[in-house]
């Protein structure tokens, strides 16, 4: 161990804290950062600093944003009557790439799971309620996973809004495109049948 540079060890340690990166990959990445041109490596480092210093959360929808309001919330062409609730930034990115949703978003920051210490207070549910009240939102699309946690969160949101006049819809579940009926599990097949159109 002592034969190793402490600086290198430190770098490997920090890289291995990234999600999905083990000790071995961390070591490979560290070697790469040292072997590559100095500019390359410093660009990476600067991007991290810049992202951390200049990116914050949109005060409306909690999307990542450089300004108080994100690009979506400040876009006058977006339909402000419809809000799509999603779990995290990544889901927002996926929906935006599709360009199918013309309304706004609301990033919850997780799904209800008491076992993991995530209760209603941990998520941005009050913020959602306030937004809907303030803006007279007409439709809420729930774009959450069809898992126990996703279903619980969806139910909680529906219950929370039961005294407010708003249309609430949920993403349909069913057979994936290119999926074969033969290999679709029974529950999904049933749901696909019941939600057919």
């Amino acid at each position: 161990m002592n034969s190793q540079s402490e600086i290198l060890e430190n770098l490997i340690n920090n890289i291995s804290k990234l999600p999905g990166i083990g000790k071995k990959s961390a070591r490979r990445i560290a070697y790469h950062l040292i072997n590559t041109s100095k500019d390359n490596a410093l660009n990476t480092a600067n991007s991290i600093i810049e992202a951390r210093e200049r990116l914050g959360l949109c005060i409306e929808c909690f999307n990542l944003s450089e300004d108080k309001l994100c690009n979506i919330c400040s876009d006058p062409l977006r339909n402000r009557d419809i809000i799509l609730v999603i779990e995290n930034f990544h889901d927002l990115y996926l929906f935006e790439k599709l360009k199918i949703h013309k309304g706004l978003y609301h990033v919850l920051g997780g799904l209800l799971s008491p076992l993991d210490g995530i209760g209603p207070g941990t998520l941005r549910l009050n913020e959602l309620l306030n937004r809907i009240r303030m803006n007279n939102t007409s439709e809420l699309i729930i774009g959450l996973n069809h898992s126990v946690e996703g279903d619980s969160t969806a139910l909680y949101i529906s219950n929370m809004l039961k005294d407010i006049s708003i249309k609430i819809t949920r993403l349909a579940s069913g057979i994936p495109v290119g999926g074969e009926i033969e290999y679709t599990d029974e529950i999904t097949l049933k749901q696909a049948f019941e939600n057919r159109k």
Partner: protein
Amino acid sequence: MKLNKLILDNFRNYNDLDITFDKDVVCFTGLNGQGKTNLIEAISVLGLLNSFRTNNYDEMKKFGEEYFFISGEFTDKNDNRLSIKISYSDKKKKVTFQDKKILKFSDFWGNIPIVYLIPDESVITTGPPLERRKFVDKLLSMIDREYFSLLKNYSKIIKQKNKILFDLKKENSFQTEMIDVYNDQIVLYGSKLFEKRVEFLKGFEKFFKDILIFISDGLFGGSISYSSEMDQKSYSSDLREKLSVNKRTEVYRGLSIIGPHKDDLIFDINGNDLRKYGSKGQHKLFLVALKLSEIKYIKSITDEYPVFLLDDLYSEIDEKKSAKIAKILDEDIQTFITTSNSGIIKQFDQNNTKIFNVINGAVNLV
């Protein structure tokens, strides 16, 4: 389903064992502690990916060794070869089925149906309701993927709700928003579980009644009924009602006490509750009949007989009854029996029987 070949490497007290089976009745005899049960344990792990003795794969490793490996070659009723290999080292399990790695164990479940009867299972008839639910849940999970998935989700919902109730009790507060969320889901999943269990019982009980009468020589008639705090004619609405009424009690207890995870089966023998009034012999016979019915039921649903593993049962059952059991099993059902009394094997068709003697991890044809 038939097991043709079994290979064990560092499994329990076996160094390396390679054994082939060409008969439907396979008997392992030998003194206690020689490794008879280890053999049928290995077979059960091949089909179910867990052991009836332990949830810890480390315990199955030969003492002092780094890994274990087991493999089995089966043939199904259409003579298709099925090959399963399980290896375990460094706390990692690797399962391959038909030379493809199994990533999700639940995807494999049910491919190689196994039914076992081991002495520990006497708790099914004598023990608390949990044991009878486990009996049904395990059986249905093996043959009904939707049931397995419902049960998995339902258990998760109960765990999440228990955490809420536990926290509310600790904080001495009564906020019901989160309870409502989980209660809605308990109604949804719980009623489906109930429906599936009742539907199962209807089919299962037919086999069971006939088998119990047959093996008891007409002495015992039996029945199985579903027991629940809910009104079974309107289970779903009654469940919703009871969940709502009992919110405070559940918070007070800090535990989820309403739902199909509290339901039970009532076993009746000659009109009496077996659990309260049954003799030791009646319990034993009831259990045997349950297991034999399990075999017949699986066959009726999947069109494939499971492999049957019998651990040390015959020690307490008289010859006449064991002859009847043998008669039921003589129907193309591969049966592995461990016993210290090889005389028992006389009951089976001798042309279809093979006896192995097990001595300290060595298995030899008698």
